[in-house]
């Protein structure tokens, strides 16, 4: 079969001002992933390379540019799955890492577990010597502005913005 790589950059009410940035990003991601796929023949390497591109682009909600919690923090999640043996690796509530998908892959390949989060994930990141990045890298002005807008919209509703499930933000 011919190798194929297909990427998405998130679904939702993307504003007109963000359209070209999204298109440029997914094209770059697909091209980089395809090059890796052809050079290595390794499907996981291609997946990781493609997603790393978008995790570094602040116009995408992953890695740098991730949206913020109500308390202004970044909590990231990632999942990688492999069709050969139904292997998978997942992480949740990840903080201060540059490439969540790469950490999910390490969970899949270097631990007997499938899904790590919270204190266990922190421990794994430290023991694996995964480089940390600061909030100055992850948190962008756009993400701060989006949270402020979200809070202002919440203040105009009868339900408090902090109430779970009452005021979902923009979708993925």
């Amino acid at each position, binding site marked *: *079969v*011919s*190798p*194929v*790589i*297909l*990427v*998405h*950059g*998130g*679904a*939702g*009410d*993307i504003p007109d001002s963000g*359209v070209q940035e999204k*298109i440029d990003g*997914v*094209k770059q*991601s*697909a091209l980089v*992933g395809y090059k890796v*796929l052809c050079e290595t023949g*390794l499907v*996981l390497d*291609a*997946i990781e390379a*493609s*997603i790393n591109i*978008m*995790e570094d682009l602040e116009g995408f*909600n992953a*890695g740098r540019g*991730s*949206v*913020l*919690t*109500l308390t202004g923090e970044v*909590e*990231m*999640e*990632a*999942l*990688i*799955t*492999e*069709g*050969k043996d139904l292997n998978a690796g*997942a*992480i*949740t509530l990840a903080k201060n890492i540059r490439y*969540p*998908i790469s950490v*999910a892959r390490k969970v899949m390949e270097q631990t007997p577990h*499938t*899904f790590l*989060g919270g204190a266990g994930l922190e421990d794994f990141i430290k023991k694996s010597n995964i480089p940390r990045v600061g909030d100055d890298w992850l948190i962008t002005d756009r993400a701060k502005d989006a949270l402020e807008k979200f*809070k202002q919209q919440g203040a105009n509703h009868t339900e408090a913005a902090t109430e*779970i499930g009452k005021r979902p933000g923009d*979708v*993925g």
Partner: protein
Amino acid sequence: TVGCVALDSNGHVASGTSTGGICGKYKGRIGDTPQLGSGGYSDDNVGAVSTTGYGEAIMRYNLAHRILSRMDSGIDAQNATKSVVDGMTARTKKTAGAITLSKLGDVGISFSSKRMAWAFVKDGELHYGIEQGQHEVEKL
């Protein structure tokens, strides 16, 4: 959210999905992205899927696994992806998107949201789009 599915020349498929979640989410909220069968799934016998959209609906609907299950019953990647995404939206009133590859490299792309950016490379061509119905092609 960002995602990727790929097929290598040996017929192996894989998927990846990565996200920052929902703006203004409650601290500790976990979405669909890291959950198997919701944010993604891969099976060499069928294909691979990565999803994006309204996480609470995607995880309750098991979006990724439903798409592969439909393909396993003989539906092609595009029709399986569209029918399941639309089915989730009809059932939950929330929007989502998904990208799918079959084990033979057939592509499925669908979203019930206003927009979803996507791109794929196959047989020397770069395909991409973001609007409903948009499909641009560039020769490499």
